[in-house]
Structures are given as structure tokens and as C-alpha cells.
């Protein structure tokens, strides 16, 4: 409790937003919850209610999005706030008339009912038509024309783009690729199952933290290409003001130009199965020199990895690497204990595929065998073709790991060089 | 033909026409119109 509480109170920007407790965690007693509720609920309720009925005119108000850091986000936040003010104005104006009528035209105060069924005089007709003209003006001129320009700019992904990033969505992680630099890595949620199930205190960035964040340079127009390997996902970072679906079979695109260095967090915004809540996006925006440094470092790492892939790996190396890969890539479905989820995801423990052959007599992939399944996936299911997203070493390691864990005792192993040859 | 029979006949024709309309729309959906309209891709 103290852990979670402390981290929240350290950050004044976040403090206003949340109550520092979680349910049924062994770190947080029931009394603690009740104390918090007693202390905060009435206050919160009234603040929310008051802000809702009052003019939205605060500096960082409850009406704002997360801090906008791209031109697109600033435009849409401004448009949203302006639009909210307009509709609030309309609402107050219309319901002031309703309220006047409700208080004035009561039977109990002796009102005599009228018999009119429509506007009678010319003056009444003008009164009746004006609101509609005003509405059309708001729709198509006041908000409509800026909206047109905003969309045109939002959709113009190609003009003067400085670099391209390819985002590949799959259940439930993102793969980021920098085609020009030849860098590619997978980014998955780093929050532990213990935090989710209340066995550990929740960290400050609960559910919004990943193992490998996307690194982008500031003040560059970055064109983001989106594809998906399985179902439809949606890439959304609230601070960037863009959201776009990643649709299988289509190439979708959008762009960001981050103006301020920092770490920005978002989530998948399209229901994509059981892990939908656990598919965060973290973008670290850094100045250009730092970005170049990072690129150089990454490149060095991958050439090193390539060299490593060529050598013969020992069983211990494969098992250690396989354990790492399994946790990130496989355990969301097949579970940490390899038992799967009955009815949804098959168990690896004792599976006939995992405990079956990998290669046929000619040394080709054994069809629907273990290695084939991992590399080429099973069409029509959540099991995707991992040869698209994992390296030779990663595939070799994870297959070896699966064949020698969870009670499986095949005793054999696969070398990265073999995987490379089978691609 | 009295008024009731006329009404009955109108009812039958109306129902038949509406059911045909339903069948036509159902069948037309399989043409996959949104796929052929470039503006909706």
C-alpha cells in the first residue's frame, strides 16, 4: 500500500486523477479502502458534478486530454474544448428556456394553457428558424471549416516526412520496425501478473509500461505505417491526438511530430481479444542526437546478434534465451506454466505437437509439427507465423525451451542456423 | 367487392411487396457494394 501510495503522492500531476488503492490486494487492507472512500468519495463526486455544470475554463482542467505534444493533438484538443463550450452554451440556453417554462407555466400557479400548435406570427417564425440557422452555421462554418483543414493535415502523412516507422500489431504486442535503419524489435507489456492480480503493489505506470519502448526523435515528421498479423488493433497515444486501426490485409498510415521530449503512454483502442487491456504503447521521444546514438547502438547490437546466431549454441544458452522469449511472446496465451487456457488456448505441457517430430526424413519442416507451427502459425487462429517477428535465435531458443519444459522431456534442441536454413 | 375484401387484398399485396423488398436487400448485400466503391476502401 505504502509503495503505491507513495509513488502517487510524489507526482502532483497525477494526484488529482486517482485514488491510491486497489482491491483485495494483500498490501492494502479493507479498512484502508473504506477510509479512502469515506475521505474521497463525496469530495470527488461534488468536484466532478461541479466541473460538469460549470464553464470549462481551468488551466489543466478535467476537460482536457492528456498533454498534447503534436500539432495534430493541439488542434484537436482546441477544437474539442471549443466544441464543448459551444454545446454547453447551447445546452444552458435551451434548458434555461425549458426551466423558465417549467417554473412559470404550471397549473398550480394558475397558468391557462395555450391552444397554438405552431409558430403563429412572423416574429415567432423568425424565432423558430434562427436556432436552426445558428446550428447550420456552427456545423458547417464555425467548426466545420477548421475541421476540414485539420483532417486534411492529419491525413497528409507523406508531405515532407522525415522518417518512417512500421508498426506491426499482433495479439497482444507491438512490433516496431525502422526500415531505413534496419532495426526491429517487439514491445510488450512489462507489468507483472502479480500486480494485475493484486499480489504485488501496483507500480506508478501500472499497465502502461513496456519492455522495449518505441524511440522517436523530436521535431521530426514521423510517418507511421500500420499493419496487423492477426486481428484488428488500434494504435493510440492520447498525447499525440492520433488513433488508427491496424487492419489485416491493409496498410494504414498516420503521422506524428513530437515537439517535446518525454515518455508518452497509450493503449490499444480496438477490442482485440482477451489481452486487449494489456497491450500498452510507450513512446520515448528524445532529441535527434540522442536518437542517432540509440540507432547506432541498436545496429551494433543486431550485428552482434547476427554473429552470435551463426555459432553453435549450448543447451543452457538456448534454454535461458527461450525462457526470456517465452515469457514475452507466448505466455499471454499458453500461460506461464504451459497449461494454456482450456477452450481458448491449447496447453503445451504434454502436447502431441510439442512432443512430436520437427523435421521430416529429408530435413524439411514436418508439416504441422512443432517448428512449423511456431514459424508459420496456424491460419485462422491466434497462433501467428512467428518467423515474421522473431529472429532465428529466438525461434530456436523458444522451441528448444518448450520441448524441455512444463514436463516435456524431448531432450533435443534446435540451432539458430537450422532455423535460418528452414525460412 | 366490398370494403373489407378490398382491404384484405391490399394487405396481402403490401405484405408480399415488403417481403420481396427484404429478400432483395438481403440478396443485394452479397454483391459486397462497399468493396467496389473506391471511396469506401
Amino acid at each position, binding site marked *: 500500500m505504502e509503495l503505491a501510495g507513495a509513488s502517487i503522492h510524489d507526482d502532483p500531476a497525477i494526484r488529482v486523477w486517482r485514488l491510491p488503492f486497489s482491491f483485495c490486494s494483500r498490501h492494502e487492507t479493507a479498512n484502508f479502502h473504506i477510509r479512502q472512500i469515506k475521505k474521497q468519495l463525496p469530495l470527488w463526486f461534488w468536484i466532478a458534478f461541479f466541473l*460538469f455544470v460549470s464553464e470549462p475554463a481551468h488551466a489543466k482542467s478535467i476537460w482536457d486530454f492528456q498533454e498534447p505534444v503534436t500539432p495534430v493533438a493541439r488542434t484537436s484538443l482546441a477544437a474539442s474544448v471549443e466544441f464543448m463550450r459551444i454545446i454547453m452554451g447551447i445546452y444552458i440556453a435551451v434548458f434555461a428556456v*425549458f426551466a423558465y417554462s417549467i417554473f412559470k407555466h404550471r397549473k398550480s400557479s394558475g397558468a391557462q*394553457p395555450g391552444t397554438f400548435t405552431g409558430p403563429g406570427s412572423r416574429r415567432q417564425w423568425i424565432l423558430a428558424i434562427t436556432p436552426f440557422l445558428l446550428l447550420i452555421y456552427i456545423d458547417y462554418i464555425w467548426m466545420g471549416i477548421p475541421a476540414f483543414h485539420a483532417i486534411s493535415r492529419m491525413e497528409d502523412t507523406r508531405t515532407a516526412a522525415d522518417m518512417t516507422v512500421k508498426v506491426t500489431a499482433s495479439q497482444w504486442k507491438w512490433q516496431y520496425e525502422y526500415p531505413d535503419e534496419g532495426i526491429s524489435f517487439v514491445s510488450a507489456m512489462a507489468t507483472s501478473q502479480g500486480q494485475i492480480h493484486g499480489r504485488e503493489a501496483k507500480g506508478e505506470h501500472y499497465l502502461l509500461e513496456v519492455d522495449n519502448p518505441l524511440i522517436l526523435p523530436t521535431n521530426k515528421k514521423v510517418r507511421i505505417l500500420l499493419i496487423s498479423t492477426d486481428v484488428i488493433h488500434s494504435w*493510440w497515444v492520447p498525447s499525440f491526438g492520433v488513433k488508427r486501426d491496424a487492419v489485416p490485409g491493409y496498410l494504414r498510415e498516420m503521422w506524428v511530430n513530437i515537439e517535446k521530449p518525454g515518455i508518452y503512454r497509450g493503449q490499444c483502442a480496438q477490442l482485440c481479444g482477451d489481452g486487449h487491456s494489456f497491450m500498452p504503447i510507450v513512446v520515448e521521444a528524445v532529441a535527434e542526437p540522442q536518437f542517432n546514438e540509440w540507432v547506432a547502438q541498436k545496429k551494433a547490437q543486431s550485428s552482434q546478434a547476427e554473429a552470435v546466431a551463426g555459432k553453435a549454441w549450448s543447451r543452457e544458452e538456448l534454454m535461458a534465451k527461450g525462457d526470456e522469449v517465452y515469457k514475452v511472446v507466448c505466455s499471454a496465451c499458453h500461460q506461464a506454466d504451459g497449461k494454456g487456457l482450456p477452450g481458448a488456448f491449447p496447453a503445451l505441457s504434454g502436447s502431441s505437437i510439442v512432443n512430436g517430430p520437427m523435421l521430416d526424413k529429408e530435413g524439411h519442416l514436418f508439416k504441422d509439427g512443432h517448428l512449423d507451427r511456431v514459424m508459420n502459425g496456424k491460419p485462422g487462429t491466434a497462433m501467428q507465423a512467428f518467423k515474421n517477428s522473431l529472429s532465428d535465435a529466438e525461434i530456436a531458443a523458444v522451441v528448444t525451451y518448450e520441448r524441455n519444459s512444463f514436463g516435456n522431456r524431448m531432450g533435443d534442441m534446435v540451432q539458430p542456423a537450422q532455423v535460418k536454413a528452414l525460412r | 367487392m366490398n370494403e373489407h375484401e378490398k382491404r384484405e387484398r391490399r394487405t396481402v399485396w403490401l405484405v408480399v411487396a415488403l417481403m420481396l423488398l427484404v429478400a432483395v436487400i438481403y440478396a443485394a448485400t452479397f454483391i459486397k457494394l462497399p*468493396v467496389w466503391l473506391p471511396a469506401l476502401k
Partner: protein
Amino acid sequence: MTEATAAVAHDHPHAGIMRWLTTTNHKDLGILYMSFGGIMFFVGGLFIMAVRAELLYPGLQLLSPGMYNQLFTLHALIMVFGAIMPFATGLNNYLIPLMIGAPDMALPRVNNWGFWILPFAAVLLLIPFFLQFFGTGSGATGLGWMMHNTTLDIQSGIGIDFAIFTILLLGVSSLTGAINVVVTALNMRAPGMVLMKMPLFVWAWLITAFMLILAMPVFSAAATMLLTDRHFGTHFFDAANGGDPILLQHLIWFFGHPEVYIVLLPAWGLIPHILATFSRKPVYGYRAQVYALCAICFLSFIVWSHHMLTSGLPLAAEVYFMYATMAISVPTSVLVFCWLGAIWRGAMTFETPMLFALGFVAHFGMGALTGLVLPDVAVNAQHHNSYVLVAHFHYTFFGGGIFGMMAALYYWLPKFTGHMFDEKLGRLHFWLTVISFNITFIPQWFAGLDGMPRHVADYALRFSAMNFISSVGAFLLGLTQLLLVYIVVRCVRGGPKATGQVWEGAQGLEFTLPSPPPYHTFETPPEVK
């Protein structure tokens, strides 16, 4: 006469349960439809209570993510197709013949068939949900009410197959109901009741029925295509084999957007009745409202893609769907203006139905005005699939649809039962509903503005406060509805006798009959001047 008179020429042909199974009487079927809608309202409510309990605190406490997805999907499907639509159909069954001076609906046997499909459809939808507890299958559909993630639909377990058959059955039921309404309204009106004298509730239902006839077959066809994709080797939507996942989104939203108005139009039709009655004035702007309803019907068929503005449509399509959607605000505000005109300079009293009607106007207004913001494509990129959207459509569906249905229930309940309900409890129910409804949904705006996506079983800590308040509000809202059951049951069992007129200012043919109306009414059509 049609088969109507032949089928019901003798009074109450069966007693007990057989009466309800075999009835072709529009009043009996109306009551069946409304009771079914009422029961489903509580089933759907129960599901969302579990969802809100999970969302009370961050972290997973009660449900697995898969179970969570099933529960909110079932909540949505049941509320829209099981609660609001059947209840509105029940109202039309009971009221349209009374309002237009007809002895029954035009197709009474079809009417019976249309109703009895519904319980089976509901059972079909829920079977896989219960099967999973016995280790069979992976549970009910958990893909959202419009199943808009095409490839996920293709991959999911048996739940989606059951959902597809449910949709096909509901399609048949809705279409029989719709055709019945069209034929009744066009063909069974009492002499002298020309179309432009038809009560607005009947007009609204006539238009709703046309929308069902135009939109429902598309939904059924899309569901069929999904079924053949899953089991019979077609590739309509399967991207891996050259299909088009966006096609399914187009088809279901081509149905899904009119569906929004199918839910709302019956409520829009009955609100003027109630406002006029308790203001003791004639309906204001009758023609304007009829034309506005027609315009909304037309517009609802050309704006569907505003539900898909983040799916990457071409620029031209985005601009078109934005401007077309904004156009809906004009006829909608004509309606609001007419509601204002209805109470202006009246002599108002505030019985429960009037309170719900005014509550409808106030909450629906909020939903409608936020609907003005959402089509702005740039802003939509932020709001789409966030909790802003959840709040928005609950203000229209609950604040509009359900408030409207409750207003109608209280307004015609004395007519249905012959007893007045407990006015004090009714008002209590109204105020508790208003308060808990707003506690539930106001925080969702702010969670959404702050970046909370929808459909998530677990959320980041910055959304904790808003979700906590929202959950507490939802529990209150759920509990409050038990009061409604008590009020209705007590009213059915007894209470002060209601007059035929029921309300002092009530107008319309149904109020010329005694309360409750006899089993057969208007066998000789009344003359309408």
C-alpha cells in the same frame, strides 16, 4: 376483415398458460413483449453489475478478461435487442390498434410467431455462456455488440456462432413485427384518420418499421456471410484469403447506425403525447415532427461510416461522413424545439410520466449535443473507442431510449392495468434514477477525455477515481430499478381505479376506452373527424 376477427372472434379461447402461448390478441402480445423486455432489462443489468464490480478498482479481482468481454457484450446485445426493442414493440402492439381505431394488428398470427421467436433467441444467445461452466466451449460471444473486429469474429469460439443464429432469429422477429406495423398503419386506420392525423407515436413506429425493413436484411446477410466464412470456406471477410475485413464493418454499421434510431424513434414518438397531456395543450409542430422523423430516417442510412473514422477511410469519405453526420443535428433539433413548444405556455403538472419525459429531454439533449462533437474527424481520432463514446451513447440509449420507455410505461400503465400506480414511489424512482444515472455516466466523460479506452477489463491508475464513482453509481442505478418492479407489480395487483381518461389532459382514441380496455376493442371502427 382480415384474419384478425376470425382468430379472435370468441373471447379468451384458452385459459392459463395456453392463453399466452396461443394468443393472437394484440393486447396480450403487447403485454408479453413488454414483460419480456422488462425481464431482459434486468438480465442485461445484472451482467453490467458484474462488469462494473470488476471496474470498481484497478486490477483483476472478479473476472477473467475473457469473461469480462462476454459480460459487456451480452449486456449490450440484451439491452438493445432484448430489452429496448421488444419493449418498444410491445408498446406498438398494444397501442397502435387503439390509437388508430383498429380491432387488432393486421397480421395477428404472424404477431404471435414474431413474439415467440424472441425467448428462443435469448436462450440461444445465453446457452454458450452457461455451457462454459460445464467445460464446453469458450463461452458466449465477447466481441462487442456490433462484432466490429472482423478477423477476431472469424477466429473466435462457438459463442459467435450462437450469436449469429440469434441475430438471424431476431431479424425474422423484427421483420415480422415491422411488416405488421407498416401494414397496420397503412391499411387499418379508422375512417377519417388520414395519414397526417395519425398520432405521432404511430408515425414514429411506421418510420421505425421502414428502417428495420431496409436495414435488418443487411445485418442478417452480414451475419450469414460471417457464418459461411467461419464454416463453409467462403472468404468474404478473411484477409488472409483475399477477403476484406473492412467490408463487414461497412455492412454492420450500415445496419448499426439506423439501429440507433430504431431504438430512439419510438421514444421520440411518444414523448410529444406525454408532454402535450401534462401541459394540457395540443401537440406542437405536428407536421414539423413528422417531416423531421422522415429526414432522420433518410439521414441515418447515409452516415454509417462515422463509426469507422479511425479505420483509415480515404480523406474524401471522412469529410463526407463528417458533414453528413452533422446534418442530423438539424432535424433532431426540430424535435427538441417542438418539445419545448409543447410545454410552452401550458398548464403543467408533474406526474411521474411527465417527470420521465422531461428527464428524457434533458438527458437525451446531452447525448445529442455530444453527438455534434464526435463526427469532427480530428476530434474523433481522440474520442473514438474511448470512454467518451461510452458515456455519449449511454446518454442517448439510457437517457433517451430507457427514459422514454419508462415515461411510456408510467403513462399507459393505468390504461393497461386499470389501476393508478403509487405516485410518490414513482417520483422517488424518477429522482433516484436521474441521480444514479448521472453519477454513473458523468465520470465516464472525464475518464474518456483523459484517455481511457473502452472494452478494457483493467485500467491504469490515473482512471481509478472516475471508475470508482461510476461503479458506485451503477450499483445505485441497478438497485433503484428494483423499485420499478415493486411499483409495477403493485399496480398490476390493485390500487385506486383508473378512469378511462386516466390523465386530465390526455387526448387520443385509446383514452376514449375504459381502463383496462376490454379484450376486443373497435370492432366497429370509430369515426375520426
